């Protein structure tokens, strides 16, 4: 097994799926010779040619609208939108069409496309390059919104997303792209979409997060253990929507306490839905109000201040303590 960064792991997933299935087409801005601005598609054009690795004109609605058309013909386009801050240019194509063709035609036509896009802060980028707006996509019936948290699950989830018969928005944390390596088996590995995972067991408190926030969350769990002897159970959603509430509900039924973490702005963010599910399914077991540790309700600041905007282990620990003290 090779130790891969998330970029390399995603690249492996694309390469293998393209080898497996000539319906899989990669397209987007600079995905060809340039290998994508983060190099996730590196080397693909050399192996699969311009026919299957398609540099497009600079137009996001074009990329997504064309991907929808390709899907309707039976292909499996994996398009890249260079930064999630520019997925709004194609918002209508997803809302009005990708999400609805199956429903609209009662199953006759489907849109098995994947829209990959780097999301989130932490890489000292320009404006619009640090956005975290998964809640928009999570609220869209017909769409799956997936966010991996490390090289191995990124690879497995991307393979599943490509094979999935429905449209998947696949957000990749820029901060995780090269942050660490993991063993990623050469052999095919998939993870089911719409299933969360318990990544650390514990009985005192439940921490629920996804994507880039898994790292500070796990750090906080370790700190809680080491400094306070508190055993936090940690849940990685992996898929934000359709939201799998089984594991985190089960966990809170046991712990009675929870903290929800995301880097997106707090209000009307994904965390609110998690809190609401817990309200509905674990109310009588709750020992304390659930805390949210999130980005603030402002545009994520330019990079000199982004560290203070983004949730970190300290803020999570602090929230956990508050929940534990209640």
């Amino acid at each position, binding site marked *: 097994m090779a130790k891969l960064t998330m970029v390399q792991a995603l690249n492996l997933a694309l390469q293998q799926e393209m080898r497996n299935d000539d319906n899989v087409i990669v397209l987007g801005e600079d995905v060809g010779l340039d290998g994508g601005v983060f190099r996730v598609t590196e080397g693909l054009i050399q192996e699969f040619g311009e026919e299957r690795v398609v540099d497009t004109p600079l*137009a996001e609605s074009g990329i997504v609208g064309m991907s929808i058309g390709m899907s309707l013909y039976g292909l499996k386009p994996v398009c890249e939108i260079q930064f999630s801050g520019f997925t709004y240019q194609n918002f209508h*194509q997803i809302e009005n*069409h990708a999400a609805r063709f199956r429903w609209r035609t009662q199953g006759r036509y489907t849109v098995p496309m994947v829209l990959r896009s780097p999301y989130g802060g932490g890489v000292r980028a320009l404006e619009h390059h640090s956005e975290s707006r998964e809640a928009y996509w999570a609220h869209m019936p017909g769409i799956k919104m997936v966010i991996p948290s490390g090289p191995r699950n990124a690879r497995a989830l991307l393979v599943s997303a490509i094979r999935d018969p429905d449209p998947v928005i696949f957000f990749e944390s820029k901060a995780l792209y090269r942050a660490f390596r993991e063993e990623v088996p050469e052999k095919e590995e998939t993870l089911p979409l719409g299933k969360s995972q318990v990544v650390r067991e514990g009985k005192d408190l439940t921490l629920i997060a996804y994507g880039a926030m898994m790292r500070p969350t796990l750090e906080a769990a370790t700190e809680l253990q080491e400094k306070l002897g508190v055993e936090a159970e940690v849940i990685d959603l992996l898929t934000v929507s359709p939201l799998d509430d089984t594991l985190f509900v089960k966990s809170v039924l046991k712990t009675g306490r929870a903290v929800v973490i995301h880097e997106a702005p707090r209000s009307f963010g994904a965390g609110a839905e998690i809190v609401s599910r817990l309200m509905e399914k674990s109310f009588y077991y709750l020992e304390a109000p659930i805390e949210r540790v999130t980005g603030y309700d402002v545009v994520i600041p330019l990079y000199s201040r982004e560290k203070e905007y983004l949730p970190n282990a300290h803020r999570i620990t602090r929230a956990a303590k508050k929940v534990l003290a209640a």
Partner: protein
Amino acid sequence: MPRKNINISDKIETLSILDEHGKLDEDLEPDIPEDELIKLLRGMLLGRKFDERMLNLQRQGRIGTFAPISGQEAAQIGAIALLRSSDWMVPAFRETAAEIWRGRSLESVIIYNSGYCEGAQIPENLNNLPISVPVGSQILHAVGLGWAMKYRKVDDVVMTIFGDGATSEGDFHEALNFAGVFQTPVIFVCQNNQWAISIPVHKQTRSKTLVQKALAYGLPGIQVDGNDVLAVYVAAQEAVARARAGGGPTLIECVTYRMTMHTTADDPTRYRSDEEVEMWRKRDPIERFQKYLLSRGTLSRDKLEGLEAEILTQIQTAIDQAEAEMTSLGDPVDMFDHSYEQMPAYLMEQKKAFLAELDESREEADNG
């Protein structure tokens, strides 16, 4: 390079064969078999008669909002007739005549316009997309389909239809640009019916023609008299042949007219004059074509009457059948279907809750 005019190499042409008095430009007369000519007429007549009947049904409250096509029969049928069944059609929302030509049943139109999603079901053997309501958005899907055909090395083509208003949307631009770059086999058929609801085409854009927009993408373009089914047919024939042979996309502008309201919810007297409508009525695409067919002996008065009667029966049968079908449609719990291939757990819970509430309400109703 001093100051000089740039020579635009792509040709932008205009074509008319049968003028508004039914007079033929004999040099340009295409060689279309007689039965095809009659088929074209039938498609146009069916479009017109069905339209009239749907309007009627709407006024009687038997169907919901409906977008009539009257006036655009030549522009629709003349273009779509060039496709073979393995080709694809990507319509907007006012292409009922073209959809029917492509095999869509009248029943499904009635059922759809009565608010049933069942009416959007497309039989497996038809390569048609369903109507697309967001203006201009479907044009990109045509480009993607065309891309896929080229990738699969089949010689099918895609025809997509949209209105004059659609040319203002960003998606129109992105679609034609992508089609140019990737040389996809797509025929872009603009139904310039002069109006986008209340906005006349000269307020939609300052370019003198819509077809010249093709120059922005390095595409050939042709503007045709859209009320002249022969001209539309010839232009589409060329474009389809080019696309099929790997020559890439074409923009066709059909200059035509929306003879009635935008939809049944619209009152066109608010924004356009009777004179204008009258003027265009004189250019009726069906009358003109009938004159031509009568004069060349392809059609007789008798045959025409027979055709019309047959069409009216076809429509009545469809209405009866659709209304019968609808009595068994509409179970609300179906709304949970087809969101995803596999229903997510949480949606299943919602469906269950919905069914429980339904049962309960029925009980209450029974008891109350």
